């Protein structure tokens, strides 16, 4: 006990001190001063105040030079002088000079100050605990805000782990993320952690059930606590802490700690899901950009300038069902060289079909620039397609060469739906297949055929996306309806005929999605 100034001559001696003792601030110094005064006024060598608990006296306060016991039994007061006090007893050692009278007034003041100090300390502890609950709520709120405010997974991982370690008074913590059939260490705080752990690791399974066995996730720790991070039962990771601290060492976590860790794991699940969704959205955006680029490239394969041949009109139109499609058409040539017409339809849709369209385009352009059009040319194209496409991929195609002077058109129909030739008198002829689709059999035979286009005749080559468009009930449009439509608009400008086909298909589908790529090539001999 440190020496203290006696209070005897102080004005208003103890009232202020009692209030201060109750405030919790400097209470030990105040008790020391009162005890010094009590020792002095009662001529004591030492004294101790004891509380009776379960047949045992335990010490609340001690002052003076002589050692006094920390605890003793009710029947074991020993050689000390005693004085009953409220709730307990006082042991005291009389001073050497004389056995003085106890200063009852000062003893009562000291007891009041001790009570006030203990109540003050209790208040401090309750206040501390209440404030700590405030910090917990604030932390959960802040983590929620952080999740809403950023998609930086690194920052969110730190936010969740550090707050969990801090709020649970853990000595060590780690965050694991799911990686296939195992969990991969994402970050750790306060110590080491295993780099990887299998999801069926017996130690982990036991740990998630509240037991400890096997190799610990956090080496060197004694009391681990682990909760899964899950979104809709889908495992995303693990949040692990270990060794709950107190002033005397470390111990196991309480149930309330497990609930709190679970709340942080829920927050982490939201953060991870948000980050995943954001990554997927970015990836989708990137794919969309690539598909737009691919669509641009594919559009460039189609003719931008149509043949300008006196006495003939030409038109072409294509609309893919997705960004890019498997339909292709070409119209090129002149009155002198003749005009080449092509319409191809690759099986399937989307990017795989579009890639094969590029192959077809290149092969045809190269061969047509090098040799005359006939069945042999189509055989060469077929061989090339068969060599460069997957086994389940094929192309139906109608290709033709028109001699504008004579009106004679030589064509090969490679497994394509028969083009329709609407004669001026309204009769309709079909251009039947002369071989199987391209790419199925490398050395397949093809036969060409010829027709004559006369003034007023309209030829329509189309993909099956036109005739196979369906009503919501599943009824197909069909070549008969297309023939009727062509007959009814045969004398209209070609652009209007294409608009009529487009509109008719849309109306026929009655709001249903476009099921397949749609392409049309029209040729009309006007004179």
């Amino acid at each position, binding site marked *: 006990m440190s020496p203290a100034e006696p209070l005897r001559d102080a004005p208003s001696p103890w009232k202020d001190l009692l209030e201060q003792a109750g405030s919790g*601030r400097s209470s030990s110094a105040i008790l020391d001063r009162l005890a010094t005064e009590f020792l002095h006024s009662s001529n004591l060598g030492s004294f101790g105040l004891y509380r009776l608990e379960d047949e045992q006296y335990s010490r609340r306060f001690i002052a003076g030079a002589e050692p006094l016991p920390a605890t003793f039994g009710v029947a074991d007061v020993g050689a000390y002088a005693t004085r009953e006090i409220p709730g307990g007893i006082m042991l005291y050692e009389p001073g050497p000079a004389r056995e003085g009278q106890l200063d009852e007034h000062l003893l009562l003041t000291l007891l009041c100050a001790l009570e006030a100090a203990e109540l003050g300390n209790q208040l401090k502890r309750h206040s501390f605990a209440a404030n700590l609950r405030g910090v917990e709520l604030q932390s959960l709120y802040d983590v929620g805000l952080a999740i809403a405010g950023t998609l930086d997974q690194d920052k969110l991982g730190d936010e969740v782990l550090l707050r969990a370690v801090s709020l649970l008074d853990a000595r060590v913590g780690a965050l694991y993320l799911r990686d296939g059939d195992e969990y991969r260490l994402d970050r750790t705080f306060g110590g080491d952690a295993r780099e990887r752990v299998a999801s069926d690791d017996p130690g982990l399974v036991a740990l998630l059930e509240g037991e400890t066995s096997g190799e610990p996730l956090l080496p060197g720790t004694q009391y681990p606590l682990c909760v899964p991070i899950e979104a809709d039962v889908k495992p995303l990771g693990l949040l692990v802490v270990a060794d709950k601290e*107190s*002033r005397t060492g470390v111990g196991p976590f309480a149930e309330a700690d497990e609930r709190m860790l679970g709340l942080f794991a829920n927050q982490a699940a939201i953060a991870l899901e948000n980050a995943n969704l954001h990554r997927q959205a970015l990836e989708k955006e990137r794919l969309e950009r690539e598909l737009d680029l691919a669509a641009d490239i594919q559009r460039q394969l189609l003719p931008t300038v149509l043949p300008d041949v006196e006495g003939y009109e030409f038109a072409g139109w294509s609309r893919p069902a997705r960004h890019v499609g498997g339909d292709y058409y070409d119209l090129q040539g002149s009155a002198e060289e003749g005009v080449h017409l092509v319409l191809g339809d690759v099986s399937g849709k989307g990017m795989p079909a579009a890639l094969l369209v590029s192959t077809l385009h290149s092969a045809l352009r190269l061969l047509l620039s090098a040799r005359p059009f006939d069945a042999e040319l189509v055989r060469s194209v077929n061989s090339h397609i068969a060599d460069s496409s997957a086994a389940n991929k094929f192309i139906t195609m109608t290709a033709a060469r028109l001699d504008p002077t004579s009106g004679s058109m030589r064509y090969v129909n490679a497994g394509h739906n028969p083009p329709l030739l609407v004669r001026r008198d309204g009769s309709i002829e079909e251009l039947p297949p002369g071989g199987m689709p391209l790419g199925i059999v490398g050395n397949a035979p093809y036969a060409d055929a010829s027709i004559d286009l006369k003034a007023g005749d309209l030829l329509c080559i189309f993909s099956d996306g036109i005739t196979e468009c369906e009503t919501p009930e599943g009824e197909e449009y069909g070549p008969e309806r297309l023939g009727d439509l062509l007959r009814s608009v045969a004398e209209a400008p070609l652009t209007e005929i294409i608009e009529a086909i487009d509109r008719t298909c849309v109306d026929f589908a009655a709001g249903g999605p476009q099921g397949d790529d749609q392409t049309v090539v029209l040729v009309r001999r006007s004179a």
Partner: protein
Amino acid sequence: MADMLKVTLDSRDGLAVVYTEGYINNQGGEEIAKVAYDLIEEGQKCVLLNLAGTKIVNSIGISILIEIIEKMLEIDGKLAFCSLTPTIEKTFHIMGLAQYASIFPDEDSAVAALTS
């Protein structure tokens, strides 16, 4: 093995500045308390704790910091903090430390205020 808090001590314009690096938990708090109580023994009445190297504090660490503040108040001294992360600063406000200890955004402003 858990990482230990590192504590270093410096003096600026007669002011004791204690730097921490790591977790202020039970062990970390005790390290700080040891340095702070030595400074009190040496008659130092104003101590600045620079927590720039500390990301987190737990409740045990906070209770030790409160004890240091109380010790300083008993000798009419002062403990101040600077360079806290936003999370730690918010925690100190909620836990009541800010009522009895000044908090400064950085060391320069703390030294200027505490030595004037």
